[in-house]
């Protein structure tokens, strides 16, 4: 018996890991796992590293965009080019400061229109795989963020908080296949659910064939899910098709917020949640 265990220790330990994963999956699916210590420990290590790394990534992104501008100066001589590059780096810093200032001002204005007191948070990491669309915020339960709160910007909905540690919060983005936001077509008040999909980007589901939905229609949150404040912009309809069979229309949506370009979000309790507080 002992010899058998010793001989097969690697496959047996792997098998135990698989069973443990399934147990964790089942417990997580039932919502029984809350703030286990490993998450807190990993986040404690990762948070400062991710803040620094994301800062570098944002700087590179900004620099790439500005480099396109620099490309026009290629024909000029080397001295001028170096001078322009130096100035460009300085300009980039000023532009970045100005853009940050503008964004934060917009968020402050927007904050006054929200039903509950929002928490301003920065995105410090994105999803680690291609399957799921999520991001990590630099604020957590210690700052008042709770699971189920909405992440929004002045432009519209970003996603929903799905888990929190003391200093970080994970947001499931609107474009994730697991997300689902109760929306209204602003023009006709038809209801549906906006969700991500791997196949077609973001889609509006469960809208009956008889409902009047057209390209260009704006979608806003209905507020009925108790997660998102009512009337927030979700996206714009870009394609409507009615297949031969089926009860519902197929509708593609362009999200109002391009999550890849967002750096700060407001985390706010929904109307249902806010009234409880």
């Amino acid at each position, binding site marked *: 018996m002992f010899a058998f265990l010793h001989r097969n220790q690697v496959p047996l330990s792997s098998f135990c890991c698989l069973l443990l994963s399934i147990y964790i*999956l089942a417990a997580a699916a039932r919502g029984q796992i809350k703030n286990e210590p490993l998450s807190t420990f990993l986040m404690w290590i990762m948070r400062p590293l991710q803040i620094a790394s994301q800062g570098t990534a944002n700087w590179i992104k900004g620099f790439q965009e500005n480099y396109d501008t620099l490309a026009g100066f290629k024909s000029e001589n080397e001295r001028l080019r170096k001078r322009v590059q130096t100035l460009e780096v300085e300009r980039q810093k000023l532009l970045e400061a100005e853009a940050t200032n503008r964004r934060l001002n917009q968020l402050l204005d927007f904050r006054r229109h929200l039903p509950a007191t929002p928490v301003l948070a920065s995105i410090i990491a994105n999803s680690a795989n291609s399957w799921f669309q999520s991001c*990590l915020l630099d604020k957590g339960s210690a700052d008042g963020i709770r699971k189920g709160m909405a992440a929004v910007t002045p432009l519209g909905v970003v996603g929903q908080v799905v888990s929190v540690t003391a200093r970080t919060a994970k947001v499931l983005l609107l474009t994730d296949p697991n997300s689902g936001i109760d929306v209204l077509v602003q023009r006709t008040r038809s209801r549906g659910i906006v969700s991500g999909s791997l196949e077609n980007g973001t889609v509006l589901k469960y809208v009956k064939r008889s409902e009047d939905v057209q390209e260009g229609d704006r979608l806003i949150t209905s507020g009925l899910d108790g997660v998102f404040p009512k009337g927030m912009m979700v996206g714009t309809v870009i394609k409507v098709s009615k297949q031969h069979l089926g009860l519902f229309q197929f509708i593609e949506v362009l999200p109002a917020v391009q999550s890849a370009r967002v750096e700060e979000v407001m985390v706010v309790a929904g109307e249902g949640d806010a009234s409880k507080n």
Partner: protein
Amino acid sequence: MRLFLLFFLVGIFLLLLQTTLLHLLPIGPVVPDLILVLCVYLGLYHPSVGGALGSFLLGYSIDIVSSPILGLNAFAMSLVFLSVYFSSRAIWIQNPIVTSLVVLLAALVKGTAVVLISAVFLSVEGFWIGAARYIIMEALVAAVLAPLVFALLRRGQNYIEKFHAVAQ
């Protein structure tokens, strides 16, 4: 212990890369899965209880940082380790093409596991429809990067072992 520390630090570094800087690569929605490559490396060169636990923890770390549900990537990475462990008895990896091929197959195993587990535990409607494209794209990117990651890991491991030998 030194090797454990090496793989722990490499795991943290790769997770950091995957969640931040690798998103800047112009390869569409796919993020190179370097942690999968590390799990394959563990399965091939460290077929031990520590390797199995390491793969599980690497997957669990991804779950903590970015999965909609805990346990999803832990399961997939453990399965990858087990698959590679069994297949490593039949193959002899000495050149980058075979390395890429093994990582490609491991990525396909992982992608399929993620889709199946998502279908069971997340009940995402129609999730599998677009999944094939993602599985293949992710597998190809991982396969292309695998020889480089393997070479770096081997170099790091050699350095640690040499340092250990000299210290003794």
